[in-house]
């Protein structure tokens, strides 16, 4: 039954049932004047029904492009390259007809965007926009759709939903607008919701409320959630499994506890070290030196080697494969095979 090839699921974490979403060697390239930007370059992962997976990485690592390609909405000149496969609920998104895909979007597979101010149409009332999702996917009448929208607005915690539904996006606060986005995404109870940085544009106090709301709705409806974020705190709170992306590739994949206990990839290590911790004396915040290289010119060998504190000559010559670290835990690093290098380097650093 498991037709998602060996690179995926060889770790035994998947049972014999097909996962809800199986992405396999996804490549999204952009033809630019500077050359081909390989924004997503051979990404494979799965999301099981009802599971919450965190997709983590810096800006420019390809996580948002990955998210958009799941809905086949990569903006031009981006292209999902042949050989990529995105299987969702038994259908291949990459080859589906435009009409079948439209029926899937917002219905079985929905997305929450980062910036609710710009993601809502300023000239339509929020009620209209929520009701529209119902209208385009069901045979509900205008008034039935409206009633459902108002009910949904109530269940995402919008006070006075009947009044609010008649307001325009600019009349709502940032937190309220994000609740509207969530209402739109969840009103038809999709099987999978992709949330692209759903709390990044919000105040910290509102962030917690929105995460709480997402968690509550997830538990109530049993939807699967692909949570895209650069915030490891959000991941720790919400996800059961984490995928770390760097330079268009998956560099580490692990259950959330394993990742926080024992990150195998130096990039993940760096990300964890960069999270400020309460109660720990630190002169200055930890950072990962350098920046993500441009996607038109990934380094040869390991793409992280320029920024890696452990890099040695092998990293330049040979691109590491995604190697098994533990149960359901894999990392794209030569250190998995040569763990003594990490120890040696840590010792040097301590001196």
């Amino acid at each position, binding site marked *: 039954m498991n037709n998602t090839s060996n690179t995926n699921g060889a770790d035994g974490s998947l049972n014999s049932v097909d996962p809800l979403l199986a992405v396999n060697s996804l490549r999204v390239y952009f033809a630019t004047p500077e050359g081909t930007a390989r924004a997503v370059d051979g990404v494979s992962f799965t999301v099981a029904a009802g599971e919450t997976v965190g997709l983590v990485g810096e800006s420019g690592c390809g996580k948002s492009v990955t998210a958009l390609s799941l809905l086949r909405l990569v903006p031009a000149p981006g292209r999902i390259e042949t050989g990529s496969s995105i299987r969702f609920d038994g259908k291949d998104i990459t080859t589906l007809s435009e009409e079948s895909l*439209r029926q899937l*979007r917002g219905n079985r597979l*929905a*997305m929450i*965007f980062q910036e609710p101010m710009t993601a809502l149409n300023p000239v339509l009332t929020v009620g209209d926009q929520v009701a529209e999702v119902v209208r385009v996917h069901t045979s509900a009448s205008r008034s039935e759709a409206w009633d459902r929208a108002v009910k949904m607005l109530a269940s995402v915690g919008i006070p006075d939903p009947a009044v609010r539904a008649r307001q325009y996006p600019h009349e709502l606060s940032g937190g309220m607008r994000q609740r509207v*986005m969530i209402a739109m995404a969840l009103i038809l109870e999709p099987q999978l919701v992709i949330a692209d940085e759903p709390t990044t544009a919000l105040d910290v106090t509102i962030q917690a409320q929105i995460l709480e709301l997402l968690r509550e709705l997830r538990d109530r409806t049993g939807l699967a959630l692909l949570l895209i974020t650069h915030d490891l705190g959000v991941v720790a709170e919400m996800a059961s499994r984490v995928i770390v992306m760097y330079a268009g590739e998956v560099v580490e994949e692990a259950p959330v506890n394993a990742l926080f206990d024992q990150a195998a990839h130096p990039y993940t290590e760096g990300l964890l070290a960069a999270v400020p911790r309460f109660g720990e004396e630190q002169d200055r915040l930890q950072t990962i030196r350098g920046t993500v290289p441009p996607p038109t010119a990934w380094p040869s060998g390991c793409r992280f080697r320029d920024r890696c504190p452990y890099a040695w000559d092998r990293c330049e010559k040979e691109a590491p494969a995604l190697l098994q670290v533990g149960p359901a835990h894999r990392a794209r690093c030569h250190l998995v095979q040569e763990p003594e290098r990490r120890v040696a380097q840590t010792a040097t650093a301590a001196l």
Partner: protein
Amino acid sequence: MADSAVAIPSAGVRPVGRNPRKRPVMLLALLFAVMISAPVFAPYNPMGSEEISLQRNRSPSIAHPFGTDGGDRDVLSRVLKGTQISLGIASLAVVVTLLFGTAYGTISAMLGGWADTLLMRAIDVALSIPRLLILLAVTAFWDSLTFPQLALLLGLTGWFDVARVTRGEATGLLQRDFVLATKAMGVGRIRLAVRHIFPHLIPILVVMATLAIGNTIALEASLMYLGAGMPLHTVSLGTTIQDGVGKIQYWWITVFPGAAIVLIVLAYNALGDALRESFAPEQVHAS
């Protein structure tokens, strides 16, 4: 864009009438309302009537403020009736212009890529041919045109620049996040265009329509003057001017309808500018 604008405290749509600089517009609009309701007030039958027979080419007087023409007809009545006809034709033509221009521009923007380029190059070609030339060539096929036929012809030759502006606006709109979000919700292309893109185009379309009505009236008068539009006995501003051709001593036959055209075109252009300014003050001052 915004900082290059002359400081206007509250941006957004402001009522046209409350701005003192817009008063001329209001005055012209008023004048114009009188003209629209003209046929009711016209003192004589514009086609000529018994009571003023044998009064040809009389200079302006109390009885005939605009004088009479070579056919014993009251020029004031002809100007009023002609204004009504000209305005009617222009308004109908502009409706056609807006329909075609908006549809073409939006479709071009949504197709994108080479199809968009091709469609826009076709517009460039169409715009490079003088509109009057196209109209003269086309009207040569008919002896006379009816009122709706003329309106249709004027409309069909006038939508090219509307298409280009609409395409530009729509292309910008399609880049916005809400379009991506709308697609992600499973909204199809037609619904996206009609429900999500079109409302954003309304302000610019209103401005373009206003300016287009003025232009179309002038163009229609030119056509009539050249005898290419409706048959000559039809009352229109253009045909009334035509009546005075070669009779410079009877200047009133030409000057009054001419002044009416100038006034209408001015009124529409001023209104268009005012509307543009109240919809997007920063764009007017930046350009």
